[in-house]
């Protein structure tokens, strides 16, 4: 009995679904329909691009706009795509499971999220995309804690992208504005890291410990010794910080040691922060 009742509902939903076309060149984010949720619950997309929903659960779902502007069925492992042409916030739900809710925010201007934290004074290329004609001027403003100030301006390229080089000295929130539209803000974190080092001699073994704050698990640190025959600071070992942002080096020498630990970029050479010099005397005869 129950089964018969369900079939007409599914059929009705299937009939109501408009033909979905997945355009390969204007694809945007993907949303997964789970057992009882849409994941991610909120996505941001550039105007003109599509959002694609994929059913990754054992149940049938729908993607139905609260305002009725779009609707699609997700049976089995179906996908459904909808292109969002105008900016705005679009709430949607599953018609079969109404507690399943989602949100699509559409903008004409978007800034790319920065990958990693920078060191003070680093050059960074702020980049983004705009659903605006090539040649449109985009103004970038930054807020380092005392409100948004203009930082610079650039123009939209043929492929809709734009970029601007910035040099934040501290963590800064940036946003882009053009032709009356504003992008959501992105935070570019600038971290002033410090390195602490300790040194201890156990007969012919010298152990140098290092700690980097704020934490940077799995980042590279280099042990450097000040050596006369190397005319300065000489890298002898490279290690990766553990989960607690610490590392340990052991060297075997009876001589006096003058050492420091340098927190570097991924190349293992470019210094970001350096510990003070730590010293230990030569091994007692």
């Amino acid at each position, binding site marked *: 009995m129950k089964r018969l009742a369900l079939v007409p509902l599914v059929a009705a939903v299937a009939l109501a679904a408009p033909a979905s076309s997945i355009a390969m060149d204007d694809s945007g984010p993907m949303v997964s329909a789970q057992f009882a949720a849409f994941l991610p619950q909120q996505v941001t997309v550039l105007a003109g691009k599509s959002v694609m929903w994929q059913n990754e659960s054992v149940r049938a779902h729908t993607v139905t706009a609260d305002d009725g502007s779009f609707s699609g069925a997700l049976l089995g492992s179906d996908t459904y795509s909808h292109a969002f042409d105008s900016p705005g916030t679009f709430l949607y739900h599953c018609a079969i499971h109404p507690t399943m809710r989602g949100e699509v925010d559409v903008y004409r201007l978007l800034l790319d999220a920065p990958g990693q934290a920078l060191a003070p004074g680093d050059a960074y290329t702020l980049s983004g995309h705009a659903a605006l004609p090539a040649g449109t001027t985009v103004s970038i403003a930054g807020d380092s804690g005392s409100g948004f100030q203009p930082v610079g301006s650039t123009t939209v390229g043929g492929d809709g992208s734009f970029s601007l080089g910035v040099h934040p000295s501290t963590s800064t929130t940036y946003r882009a504005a053009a032709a009356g539209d504003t992008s959501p803000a992105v935070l570019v974190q600038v971290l002033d890291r410090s390195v602490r080092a300790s040194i201890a001699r156990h007969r012919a073994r010298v152990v140098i410990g290092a700690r980097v704050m704020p934490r940077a698990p799995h980042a590279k640190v280099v042990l450097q010794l000040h*050596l006369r*025959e*190397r*005319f*300065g*600071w*000489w*890298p002898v070992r490279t290690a990766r910080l553990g989960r607690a942002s610490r590392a340990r080096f052991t060297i075997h020498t009876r001589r006096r040691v003058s050492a420091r630990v340098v927190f570097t970029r991924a*190349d*293992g*050479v*470019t210094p970001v922060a350096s510990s003070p010099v730590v010293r230990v005397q030569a091994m007692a005869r």
Partner: protein
Amino acid sequence: MSRILLPFLTALAAALVAVPAASARTVNYWIAAKPMTWNEIPNQRDAIMGTHYSPSQTVFPTVVYKRYTRDWKRPLRNVGAGTSNQDDIPGPLIRARVGDRIRVHFKNMDTVFKRVHSMHFHGVHYRPSSDGAYLPGFSGRDAAVEPGHSYIYTLHAGSDSVGVWPYHDHSQSMEESIAGGMYGMLSILGPGQKRPDREFEVVFAPMGQFQTIDGRAFVGNTPVFTSKVGETVQWDVMAMGSEHHTFHVHGHRWRAADGTYKDTQTVGPAETFVFRWHEDAPGTWLYHCHVEAHMMAGMIGIYRVRR
């Protein structure tokens, strides 16, 4: 002589001549073209002139020849302990004696640039199939080892192979490879010749904006050679690239192949010279290319002799 004895003696003489003079030895080396990040100036400065260099000027990705254990299971140092040469550049020192057969097992592990590579050896005897030089329509797999693939070069050290010789990439990627440090040396001893206590490899070559010794520029970065008074020290000097260099060592002099004494000797691209001395001068000495522009661009290092 009876008709039986003469033929018997002739046959015996022929048999004696046919016996090989000494049992031929085969030496095997496992070498790979390995990508890595290289820093020409680890102390980031020209200590003599006081100039500072940032990592963006001195660090770059490259491919080098690296020595491995059998079947490339584990990496090994390119040169043994006591030579003072740093690892990776130049490539593994291939040591053999006159009469040896040398089999070099080469694997291309270049997953970064994905270039073809090869090995081409000077001074030793080899068939065209072990030449390693790219010539379309003529050369084979020896000259174009693709990433992920390997090849075995078979070489023979003849009596005319005594000395030190270069080897380097001779595939289509030759120019970029050599500019990035893909070169090394063969060191072949004569029959009965003893190994020196120290054998130093010196390769002069340009690298980017600097003039390097074994891929490094300026004192402290170039090899810090060390020895003790009384040791037999051998210098293997070679050049790669497009310029001539003049090798000079302070506080010492040597007898060149032409019998004269020198303390400064010219070496051109792919040329080598080798000499020995009995160390007798304690101190820290400079060694460098005496072409002034090269010395100022990094072709200088130190040699430290202990008592």
